[in-house]
């Protein structure tokens, strides 16, 4: 499949995702909306697997990984109680955050991925990696805490540390500082330390941010982390 065919497939998938959300505007069309989402996702995955970026060597890995993940996902979705749905959504979303972190790191350690870029394009590429890992980390740790609060494993009371605003601000400033260090690093080994420190800060921030929110607001928090 050529790159152009893959691109139009992605456009088709996007249309289906938009229709999927639109279908939720009323109950009659909502079931169809969910189906559109599934079809859109299937098209996007198939277009990628048969597209120019995936060679035959990867098929076994992809099929294996999808079988394992898919069966876990379907099993969890089928057997969980209806009252446990929000916490299941939070838990699954933490996995998306973790996956985003892993994808970011994989791109980061790949010298071939950034070889073609120079100047502003290189900076943008590196910033995307940095911010991608940052957001993935916050989403991951935040969603895990949201899961903990929704399932009752963590107390619903908001944990309001004194000086928490200063802690958050310090974290943000450190992240920006290490972002500069990351962009200025000459090669991957130089850039490794800033990005790992940033990841730790981001994980702590995610935990802190959601711990400070009361248990009753967790569905809102999950939606917010979803948007990240």
């Amino acid at each position, binding site marked *: 499949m050529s790159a152009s065919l893959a691109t139009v497939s992605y456009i088709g998938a996007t249309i289906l995702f938009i229709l999927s959300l639109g279908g939720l505007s009323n109950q009659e069309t909502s079931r169809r909306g969910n189906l559109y989402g599934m079809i859109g996702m299937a098209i996007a995955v198939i277009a990628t697997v048969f597209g120019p970026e995936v060679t035959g060597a990867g098929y076994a890995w992809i099929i294996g*990984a999808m079988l394992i993940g898919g069966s876990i*996902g379907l099993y969890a979705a089928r057997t969980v109680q209806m009252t446990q749905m929000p916490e299941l959504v939070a838990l699954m979303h933490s996995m*998306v955050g973790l996956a985003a972190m892993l994808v970011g790191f994989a791109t980061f350690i790949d010298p071939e991925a950034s070889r073609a870029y120079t100047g502003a394009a290189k900076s943008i590429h590196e910033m995307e990696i940095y911010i991608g890992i940052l957001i993935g980390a916050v989403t991951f740790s935040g969603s895990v805490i949201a899961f903990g609060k929704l399932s009752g494993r963590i107390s619903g009371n908001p944990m309001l540390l004194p000086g928490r605003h200063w802690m958050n601000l310090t974290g943000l400033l450190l992240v920006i500082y290490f972002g500069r260090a990351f962009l200025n690093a000459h090669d991957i080994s130089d850039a490794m330390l800033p990005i790992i420190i940033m990841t730790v800060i981001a994980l702590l921030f995610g935990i802190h941010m959601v711990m400070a929110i009361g248990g009753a607001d967790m569905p809102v928090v999950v939606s917010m982390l979803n948007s990240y």
Partner: protein
Amino acid sequence: MAGNKLAIMFGVAAALFWFIGANAPQAFLAHFTVFVLGCFIGYMVVWNVKPALHTPLMSVTNAISSIIAIGALVQIAPPIAGAAGRPDDWIRALAALGIVLTAINMFGGFAVTQRMLAMFRK
């Protein structure tokens, strides 16, 4: 929204756009266009969702967020694999784990949404 706040917002947006336009390469601007349009589409589409359907909405947007799988899929065995200095095994391990995680969310997410929506059957 008050006139002043609106004017300030537009001013900040214009300054940001100017900064981007002055410094960014062409390829980025194409992506940026899609991003901006996507933001508006998402905002407008979600405004129409009935309050009763907000929890299934949270679930289906979570399922759609597993589109990150595409990022992992293109790293498993790209055409450039085997190039000198590329830690293939590390990248493949990270990407494979990423695919497992997103597959859980992909299949589980749509299935959870389906269960939620099934409750609405009259």
